[in-house]
């Protein structure tokens, strides 16, 4: 054969499709996305014949034009015309599974049915006459157990044979009037269509399927002829065309199964039913849900096992950060590069720029793998669908899915896995909304910022942190309500009609594969984003021009011919600081750029280069905000020798005998005075309000680059990524603006224009919040 065969794997969700795909292709898989949408696309080469490509279609129940997955699947089947379809059917759920089969066989593509979970059917005492079923449907049927790998090879062989055999016509018929109308439509409108595809298009025309009709480009007279035939049939059967077809399919299946499916055990509760009786029990469901969520969180991102917690993820992450990232990569690479006599700028770039950045990403990986492992287990065993069932009532008000709870919870630890956890949400609109809003949750790295502001200006009051969480949750809720009414989100309908699959023991292979796929996609995508951005930010901080000469500012400051006393005065003057506070960073590109850019933040109360520069560097990692304040307030130069906590004795390095200097602590407590003084200075004495506005802006604005990378990965679209980032920054700006401008009405010093603008913004927010909203009923795909 010179032509390479292509086979499509189709079937309902939860029918064992993923397991079968893994068994059929082994490690030869390529995971990507269907063009332009966030639906995952998987392809692989068959193990039994490496020449044959198997495409895993999204799990679907039907080929309607209303959900993204179904449209993706049918476009592939109709336009790409694979050589055969391997249709996996759950034997325990024949009726609903065969409903899709009746639609697949209309496509004119040879179809092989793989009936899965027959062992469970027999266990119940039921039996299926496969021979008769095969005859009636006109396709070969292979009995398989995807989990145990039984019959999988045979199914693949059968599909290959079918692919070589050529075209088919469906066997099943509709009732008299419908058959008549369809035959009429075929004759009237479909003369130019290949014989084997006629049935598909005729049924679609009968259903008034807009997407298929558009594709055919019929003339007006033909269209009206079709409409006439449909109307006549609708009148005769007293129902709308779409319902007629759906009904007839189910009636046909029921008829078909009457003689074929022998049911023995009846009314008995299965193990799955018994489990579900407890797990989603009216009273126990929420407590059980809370315990499971706590376990997921505590195991992945909670307290490390070395600190008395149970988190394996945190323990490994700490190790990666301190040892692998900090000591080996950053310090190790520096030592090696210095040993080679590499130029200082190169050492700086590789050690402090790239490796420090990569280390920051690597550090998350263990936590994420543990988290994804647990999410995959929850998904595979069937609990994920129950989460949506339990939480739907709360979340759907904000345009989110019940499953959005997990990303939000995870987001309090780290936004990156939070964003990635949104992949379990089926509906694209809910998923996008979740991706956009998850990072509003104050993540672990934002805690030091809150600590700094609370400590420096609010005497460490706990309400600052409490309010931060409140603001995060409020931002999610308000954004959800406002965004779902925007044009961007108006397109897709969101029916919540969801199967609650039977519980089963998760398959280790599926879980490990799923975990690795997500982990690896993070390392790859977020990795590239953060490497590039770390280099850029490192460059902005390290380079600048000193007294007219461009270079690394640290080096240039050692040149006393350049850094004259007059120049120091000039810099101090420019930066508005005293002469002994001048340091190399004041001449960096970042400081120079931050100075004029800080005007943007004037209306938010912190229009000074220091908070501006800190905010910008926060894009690398939010921890950097506090560290940067440390650098800007010249903490290193003022640091005192560290003392032993118990004895109060000064500490010395054991090897070199040099005094150990104290380090800036996480919340920057040593520079609180400077921070407070500075915020008061730039805000006419309203330091508290300005600092609070600063905190809000940093909590809500664009997340760190790694999280932006994750957003880009999940959105699978440049436009949506920019929209998300733009919205977050815009929302942060508006909220901070309102807080600072209206806040001064109470503390004094309000500006008339500012108050008017703030009230206008507030009005616009309220308008969008309370504007009436109508759910869309049509799916639009760009």
């Amino acid at each position, binding site marked *: 054969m010179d032509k390479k065969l292509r086979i499509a794997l189709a079937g309902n969700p939860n029918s064992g499709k993923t397991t079968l795909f893994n068994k059929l292709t082994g490690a030869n898989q390529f995971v990507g996305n269907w063009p332009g949408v966030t639906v995952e696309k998987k392809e692989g080469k068959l193990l039994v014949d490496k020449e044959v490509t198997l495409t895993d279609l999204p799990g679907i*129940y039907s080929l309607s034009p*209303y*959900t993204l997955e179904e449209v993706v699947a049918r476009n592939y089947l109709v336009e790409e015309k694979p050589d055969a379809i391997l249709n996996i059917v759950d034997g325990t759920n024949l009726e609903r599974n065969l409903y899709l089969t009746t639609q697949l066989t209309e496509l004119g593509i040879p179809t092989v049915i793989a009936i899965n979970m027959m062992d469970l059917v027999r266990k119940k005492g039921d039996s299926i006459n496969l021979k008769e079923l095969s005859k009636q449907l006109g396709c070969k049927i292979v009995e398989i157990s995807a989990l145990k790998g039984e019959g999988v090879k045979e199914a693949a062989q059968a599909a290959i044979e079918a692919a070589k055999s050529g075209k088919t016509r469906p066997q099943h018929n509709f009732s008299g009037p419908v058959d008549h109308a369809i035959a009429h439509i075929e004759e009237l409108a479909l003369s130019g269509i290949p014989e084997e595809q006629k049935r598909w298009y005729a049924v679609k025309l009968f259903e008034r399927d807009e997407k298929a009709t558009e594709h055919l480009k019929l003339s007006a007279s033909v269209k009206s002829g079709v409409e006439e035939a449909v109307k006549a049939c609708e009148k005769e059967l007293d129902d709308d065309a779409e319902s007629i077809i759906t009904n007839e399919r189910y009636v046909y299946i029921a008829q078909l199964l009457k003689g074929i499916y022998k049911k023995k055990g009846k009314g008995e509760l299965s193990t799955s039913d018994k489990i579900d009786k407890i797990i989603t029990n009216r009273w126990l469901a929420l407590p059980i849900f809370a315990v499971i969520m706590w376990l997921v969180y505590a195991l992945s991102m909670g307290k490390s096992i070395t600190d008395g917690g149970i988190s394996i993820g945190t323990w490994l992450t700490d190790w990666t950060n301190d040892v692998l990232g900090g000591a080996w990569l950053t310090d190790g690479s520096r030592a090696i590069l210095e040993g080679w006599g590499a130029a200082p700028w190169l050492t700086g770039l590789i050690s402090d720029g790239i490796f420090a950045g990569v280390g920051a990403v690597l550090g998350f990986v263990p936590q994420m793998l543990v988290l994804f492992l647990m999410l995959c287990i929850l998904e595979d065993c069937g609990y994920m*669908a129950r989460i949506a069932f339990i939480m*739907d009532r709360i979340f759907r008000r904000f345009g989110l899915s019940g499953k959005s709870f997990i990303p939000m919870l995870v987001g309090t630890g780290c936004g990156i896995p939070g964003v990635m956890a949104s992949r379990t949400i089926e509906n694209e609109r809910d998923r996008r909304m979740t991706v956009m809003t998850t990072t509003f949750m104050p993540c672990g790295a934002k805690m030091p910022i809150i600590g700094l502001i609370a400590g420096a200006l609010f005497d460490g009051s706990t309400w600052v942190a409490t309010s931060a969480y409140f603001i995060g949750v409020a931002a999610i809720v308000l954004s959800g309500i406002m965004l779902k009414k925007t044009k961007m989100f108006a397109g897709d309908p969101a029916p919540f009609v969801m199967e609650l699959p039977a519980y089963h023991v998760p398959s280790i292979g599926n879980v490990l594969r799923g975990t690795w796929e997500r982990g690896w996609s993070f390392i790859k995508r977020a990795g590239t984003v953060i490497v590039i951005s770390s280099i850029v930010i490192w460059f902005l901080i390290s380079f600048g021009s000193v007294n007219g000469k461009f270079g690394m500012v640290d080096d240039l400051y050692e040149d006393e011919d350049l850094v004259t006393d007059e120049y120091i005065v000039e810099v101090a003057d420019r930066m508005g600081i005293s002469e002994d506070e001048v340091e190399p960073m004041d001449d960096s590109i970042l400081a120079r750029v931050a100075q004029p850019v800080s005007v943007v933040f004037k209306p938010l109360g912190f229009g000074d280069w220091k908070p501006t520069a800190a905010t910008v560097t926060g894009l690398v990692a939010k921890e950097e905000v506090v560290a940067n304040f440390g650098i800007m307030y010249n903490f290193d130069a003022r640091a005192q020798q560290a003392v032993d906590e118990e004895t109060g004795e000064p500490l010395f390095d054991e090897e070199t005998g040099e005094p150990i200097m104290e380090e800036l602590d996480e919340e920057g407590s040593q520079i609180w005075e400077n921070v407070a003084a500075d915020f008061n200075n730039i805000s006419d004495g309203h330091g508290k309000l300005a600092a609070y506005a600063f905190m809000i802006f940093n909590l809500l604005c664009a997340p760190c680059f790694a999280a932006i990378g994750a957003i880009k990965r999940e959105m699978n679209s440049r436009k949506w990524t920019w929209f998300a980032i733009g919205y977050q920054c815009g929302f942060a700006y508006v909220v901070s603006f309102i807080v600072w401008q209206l806040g001064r009405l109470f503390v004094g010093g309000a500006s008339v224009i500012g108050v008017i603008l703030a009230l206008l913004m507030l009005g616009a927010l309220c308008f969008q919040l309370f504007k009436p909203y109508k759910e869309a009923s*049509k799916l639009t795909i760009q």
Partner: protein
Amino acid sequence: MKTLRDVKVGETAKVVKLHGEGAVKRRIMDMGITKGVEVYVRKLAPLGDPIEVNVRNYELSLRKADAEQIEVE
């Protein structure tokens, strides 16, 4: 008109007609709730909505607002 929403937990009802239109209606039918089928209302979610039903031998959850579009006898 009696709808699926009015059916009590633990009771079975036969579908007479589906109201509404478009995506939600098609989805409900695609999932097997069609004219003449028997639907058993299994339970209510802990927060009172959605509901869980058994239809064509599997478990399905749908919102009360959508259940209201399903006429039963």
